[in-house]
């Protein structure tokens, strides 16, 4: 099976005053197309750095990152932006919705960048908002929605243009258990229905129990890579 993501000997070090923090320490990882993987570690374990590096938001100090067979760790900012626009969907812990846009406009934003026409944008955004259960809330701005609803908008935005890879950083951190379960069901459904590869960084036990593959990290290294029976 071809690889959606391949990381080879990734290293990334941050400086905090005099101290050096190894966020990624010779980390190698392969994730096949259509994979559903959870990265787990205690806080500061390197999962967000790994996610940002895979998504081209951050550059490793050394090592290689391959997305869909293309090496990206030496790509320019514009090439990385293009990659994120066409192939990767992001779901952030803090939702990162654009506050002045409505739910539907937030969802349509990526398609607008892609140059998708008005009619198609409207149709697709309505469809995906229905999929995530936000019918009737299309015109609400982020400040007028609950955390769970905002996270659903963020998910809708991430998946609306059917990217091959979705990267989600602590997607359930601000959600209650019901909303978290609902979100994970949604991810599973999208994974199964569209074959989208999901990489989720979390330390939420409910999420970990939900995925077929669990990659445990500690101090920037992979300490365990478990294939499990998802709930």
């Amino acid at each position, binding site marked *: 099976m071809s690889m959606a993501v391949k990381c080879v000997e990734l290293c990334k070090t941050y400086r905090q005053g005099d101290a050096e923090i190894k966020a990624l320490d010779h980390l190698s990882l392969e994730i096949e197309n259509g994979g559903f993987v959870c990265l787990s570690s205690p806080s500061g374990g390197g999962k967000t750095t790994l996610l*940002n590096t895979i998504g081209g938001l*951050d550059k490793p100090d050394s090592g290689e990152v391959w997305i869909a067979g293309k090496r990206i760790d030496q790509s320019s*900012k514009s090439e990385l*932006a293009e990659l994120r626009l066409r192939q990767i969907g992001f779901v952030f812990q803090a939702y990162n*919705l*654009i506050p002045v846009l409505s739910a539907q406009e937030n969802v349509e934003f990526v398609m607008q*960048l892609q140059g998708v026409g008005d009619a198609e944008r409207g149709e697709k955004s309505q469809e995906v908002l229905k999929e995530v259960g936000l019918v009737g809330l299309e015109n609400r701005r982020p400040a007028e929605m609950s955390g769970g609803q905002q996270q659903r908008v963020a998910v809708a935005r991430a998946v609306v243009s059917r990217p091959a890879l979705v990267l989600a950083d602590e997607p359930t951190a601000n959600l209650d258990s019901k909303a978290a379960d609902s979100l994970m069901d949604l991810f599973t459904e999208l994974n199964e229905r569209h074959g989208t590869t999901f990489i989720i960084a979390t330390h939420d036990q409910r999420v970990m129990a939900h995925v077929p593959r669990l990659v445990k990290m500690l101090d920037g290294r992979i300490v365990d890579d478990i294939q499990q029976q998802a709930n």
Partner: protein
Amino acid sequence: MVFSNVLLVFMMSLQFGMYGLMIENSLKALTGHMQVQAHNYVDEQKMRQVVPNIVPLADTLREELGSKQVAARARAFVLASSDDRSYGIAVLGVEPGFEPEVSNIPGLVAKGRFLAADNGAEIVIGAVLARNLKVEIGDELTLLGSGLDGSFAAAIVTVVGIFDSGIAELDRSIAEIPLQHFQDTFFMDGAGHEIVVNAADINSAPALEAQVEVLLPDNEGLVVRDWNRLQPGLKQAIQADMSSSFFMYTVLVVLVAFSVLNTQLMSVLERTREFGIVMSLGMKPGRLGRLVLLETCLMGLLGAFLGAALGALLTAWFSTKGLIFPGMEELAQQFNLPPRMFPKITWLSLLAGPLVVLTFSLVAALYPAARMHWLQPVAAMRSAG
């Protein structure tokens, strides 16, 4: 930006209006838009550097140009004596019928009347000279000077008018007598020193100058000099004023550019997180930079449009009502300006300021736009802004 554009449009219109008044008022007194003279008259100002047969030549010019704004003059320096005092003055021989067409002195006669007879032994003098000589209307003055041939020239003339131009130098040192009487007194043999020609307005003067040049007789050494060459000081004064104003405008434009830079930079910094988000979603740094520039461009265009429109309205209002500068009377008098200024809107005064501000604003926005290329999405999204 709008305020600075309004200020620039108004100030430049006021300045241009002032220059227009300075030029017209200065030229209206005596100089005119151009003069026909002997070729070295301006440099040497000798009595013998004459325009021969000046009256027929002036008649020809009037006829050929189809304009009444042509008048012949002769000029001499004399000692003017009343019963009590004597002063050295410049006496001009003028054509009483045509002088009012080229000069505002006849219209400035405050007491008595302007010259009437072509060959009358009469004189019009300035108010300060009248005061200095202690003469009034009806009093006699003796003029003593040299004739064209170097002989002694003398005349007794009656004061028929006293003009008050408000320009002390003019009111103190100028007197006018009929040209024919001047020619008789100073043995001019039909000659004079200058033919003043006025155009409909200052802008059409160069075209008229070319026409006059063609009409001049050959082999008499005559030239046409425009007001620039007749009164170089006036143009220099305007240029000096423009230079200092240019400095002021430059400071204003630079201040606006820095305020735009500050505003745009703050607005970019405040939206760092949003920029990080849109970059993480796939917007390229170049596109984001262009958006920041476009934003400044729209802001600048709106500022330029509103500034020009409001500036034009303000200028239009003051161009009918006039503007008084308290305490500026003396300066105004020095440049032969009325105490009330009337701004004059032109395309240059309307567009130059706003376009320069717009250009500088766009230049100032380059740095905030360039910052988009250095922005790291992850760091930007962490920003509290």
